[in-house]
Structure formats: structure tokens, C-alpha cells
């Protein structure tokens, strides 16, 4: 593991022609996430304090955490712990904010923050993934068709 640690945020902003509820649903309902989030499904009741998880297409757990803030359809913040890395990485926080810019266009801002430092390579991994995921979300909502990007698997394979 590299000794180059960082607490930098990753921020990605994308504008989507849709009602805020559509964007919220795309983030929180598996029927949608499976089509743009590398085949992954989500599980939670999306209430503050509830657990949530992200499952790989074969059912293994990819990410788990707790819902820190839920204000549908405007804001969702979750803790984010990648489950298959041993030892488990520190908790990150992923926040989605959905703001109305007028004209029926929403600004979706994804912020991945790191209260505890992580290796820079992990940060770079996230920075490669979010543009694919959120470009796919926008395409799915606006065109009804996902981008269908290939599903990347964890580099060393899940340990459990």
C-alpha cells in the first residue's frame, strides 16, 4: 500500500433534464441503479440512521454504510465503506444534492469526502468511476437507455 495518503474531496456536477423525484429514484431504486451503476443494486429504506448497501450483480456486497441524512428528493448523504477490501478502508461520506436550476433542469452534485485519509490510488479509482456512473444516470433518465458501460470488477476480486 502506498504511503501517499489524502483527504481530498471528489466533486462531480452534472445537469439533468428531469424532475427532482426522478433523480432521487434513480439513486435509490435498484430497478434504475442496475442499469447505470455497473449493474449494482441498492438496499435501504433510505431513512436517517438506517443501513444501506450496494450489491454486485452476483449478489456479493460491494459497499455498505449508514444513511446520515435523507431529505427526499433533495439531499442524501451516506457513509461508504467498501466491504471487500481487507483490512476495511476507513469510512468515506458520499453526498448527493439535487437542486432545481429552473427550466426543468436539475443540478446533481456528488461529493465524496474522506474524514480519514485514504491512499491516493483509491481516490483516483473513484475519480475514474463517478463520471461513468453519473453520465450513465443522466443518459438513462433523459433517453430511457443506459450507456451500458462494461462492469469493472474489483482488482483483486472480492475476499468474501
Amino acid at each position: 500500500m502506498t504511503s501517499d495518503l489524502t483527504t481530498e474531496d471528489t466533486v462531480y456536477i452534472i445537469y439533468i433534464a428531469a424532475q427532482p423525484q426522478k433523480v432521487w429514484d434513480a439513486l435509490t431504486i435498484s430497478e434504475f441503479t442496475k442499469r447505470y451503476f455497473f449493474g449494482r443494486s441498492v438496499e435501504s429504506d433510505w431513512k436517517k440512521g438506517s443501513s444501506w448497501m450496494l450489491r454486485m450483480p452476483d449478489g456479493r456486497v460491494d459497499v455498505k454504510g449508514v444513511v446520515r441524512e435523507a431529505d427526499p428528493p433533495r439531499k442524501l448523504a451516506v457513509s461508504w465503506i467498501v466491504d471487500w477490501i481487507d483490512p476495511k478502508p476507513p469510512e468515506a461520506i458520499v453526498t448527493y444534492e439535487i437542486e432545481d436550476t429552473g427550466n426543468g433542469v436539475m443540478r446533481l452534485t456528488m461529493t465524496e469526502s474522506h474524514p480519514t485519509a485514504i491512499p491516493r490510488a483509491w481516490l483516483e479509482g473513484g475519480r475514474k468511476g463517478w463520471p461513468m456512473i453519473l453520465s450513465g444516470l443522466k443518459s438513462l433518465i433523459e433517453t430511457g437507455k443506459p450507456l451500458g458501460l462494461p462492469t469493472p470488477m474489483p482488482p483483486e476480486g472480492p475476499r468474501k
Partner: protein
Amino acid sequence: MNSFVYVTYIQATPQKVWDAITKPDVTRQFWMHTNDSDWKAGSDWRHTRLDGDTVDVQGKVLESDPPKRLIISWFAPHKAANPELHSRVQFDISEHKPGIARLEVSHTDLQPDVLNGVSIGWPQVLSNMKSLLETGKAASMW
């Protein structure tokens, strides 16, 4: 010096993405400006409002390899005589998989005030470009 990088994936060919950046008929539909140039290395380019007169940004074409790479200098006209205030924009376009282009826009050598503006502007412009190329309609956020 500051930089801003934005990556997006678009259901389109690299040529369509190149045309969206460089052809006024396409650009005007999502950018509220046209980009005017012959897009040869060494040529000037201008970012012109749809009134056809007002130039908001200008620069030189530094590298041009259609439809894969375009590098331009970028500055407001009143900064033309101050090269130390000029920034640089690099567009890299590739076929991520058949039918899907990956566009990376890397805006470097940015003064802090310009960084603020382009950090807001690029996600709007590129979201709008993606909507236009995929649906035929820009997201009309202006």
C-alpha cells in the same frame, strides 16, 4: 497554477463530439456561442456570442488532431497582451466502446477568478452537449 478537469461519456461517435465543439451550427444549439476557426494549428479561434459580434473568449489553436485531440489557448480579449494570464484547454476524445465517446476537458494555467467561472461553466456546457447529442435537445439551462 490551478486546473479543472471534467470527464463525460456520451452516446455518440468521436466525430460527433468533435463537431459539437468546432462546428458553429452544432455549437450554437448548446453553448449560446459559436467557436469560430479553421481549426488548424497556429490559427486563431474565437468564442462568439450568437449576436455574431461579441467575442467573449479567444486564443490560438495549439494542436489539432481531429477527431481525437484539440488544444487551444483561452483568454478574454482584454487579456490578449498579457500571455501570463492566458489559460489552456485540452479536449481529448476517444471511443470508450462502440457507440460511446469519452470526452475529457482539461483546463489548465488558470488564475483563481477564472477557475471559479470555468468550474461552474464546464459541467453546464458539457451536460448540455451530452443532452443535445443523445436526445437532439439541449437541456436549456440558460
